[in-house]
């Protein structure tokens, strides 16, 4: 089964969604991410969705859920690189992900989190 790769880079985790995801893949991602946050004791998760072109309400909820799960585990999720079409769809669906931090790209997400590429 397809899985979303979760990479540990220094003090943070990077999960990159490579293609449009099936619902089952999204559920597995939630479980994997929760397990990896505990295992690596990471405080920061970057969820890179820049390749995601199509979303529905389920994926929108999933992003909000992942953020909620991470928060319970004392980690923060930054959603990175959302495409215009995806952003518009989520707004139309009424999912504005309030409380979830967002960034244009991984670089600005790292700057936002106060990590530069030298001390990570």
């Amino acid at each position, binding site marked *: 089964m397809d899985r979303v790769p979760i990479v540990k880079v220094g003090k943070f985790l990077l999960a990159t969604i490579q293609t449009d995801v099936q619902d089952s893949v999204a559920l597995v991602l939630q479980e994997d991410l929760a397990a990896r946050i505990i295992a690596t004791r990471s405080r920061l998760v970057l969820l890179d969705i820049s390749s995601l072109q199509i979303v529905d309400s389920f994926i929108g909820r999933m992003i909000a859920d992942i953020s909620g799960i991470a928060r319970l585990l004392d980690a923060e999720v930054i*959603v*990175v*690189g*959302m*495409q*215009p079409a*995806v*952003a*518009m769809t*989520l*707004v*139309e669906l009424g999912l*504005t*992900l*309030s409380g979830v931090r*967002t*960034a*244009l*790209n991984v670089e*600005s*997400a790292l700057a936002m989190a106060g990590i530069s590429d030298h001390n990570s």
Partner: protein
Amino acid sequence: MTPNTAATAIPLARANQDAVLQRWVAEQKRSAFARPDLISDADLSRQCSEVLSAFLEGLESGSMDTSDLSWERMRSTLRGISLSRGRLGFGPSETVVFVLSLKEPLFSSLQELEPSSRIDAILELNRLIDRLGLFTTEVYQQSREQVILRQQQEMLELSTPVVKLWDGILALPLIGTLDSERTQVVMESLLQAIVDTGSTIAIIDITGVPTVDTKVAQHLIQTVSAARLMGADCLISGIRPQIAQTIIHLGITLPDVVTKATLADAFVTALDRVGRQVVSGPQASPSGH
């Protein structure tokens, strides 16, 4: 009884074709709807003669249904005339009267018919010409609607420029009323510009928006939310005093949106957020060097 009472009129109308044409043209020049400023006499005569010959041709086909194939030449002639007149600036009545005014000269050419069949023929022809008049109106209407549609489209494209003020700072000066369709275009172009330029701050300036009601506010909030989802912050500037009052009276709140009075204020805030500020240069001299 013939099924087609108008058929009795055909030979007479054919025989008098030139006379009918002359009377028709003369009548139009005299009529209150004449527009010698828009169309030359030669063009008018040419149009009349085309319509008349197409009309007689349709009549001779025996069909009384103007949507038939046999009336195709008539329809395309009228379509051409209606479109060209619409472009030249003829009013709708002036365009229709052109067709309807064919009745009088045509009917008067039927004097020689027997009274009993004359009434029937005239009634039938009357109905035909009315239908052709309606057809002309429809074409005229359609051409006008196309013009309106095209202009709407052009306005949509014209009215949503996204300008780059600084590295990482975009401005979107909105002018005119915000409806759902425009919001969609505005949102799309703003979000695309955010991706293209990698900007983290967008200033939406609504100085040119005449009124803000609950719907417009909703649209603004949507745009701001979408930009935030992508990782860019929005500032709203240019809320005029009356609009600020309306917004409060309507009970609209703009949660989590930073608002500034003028575009300049918003720009200073935006520069501050990207870690820059405006200072006067040491070499600034009044002579302008």
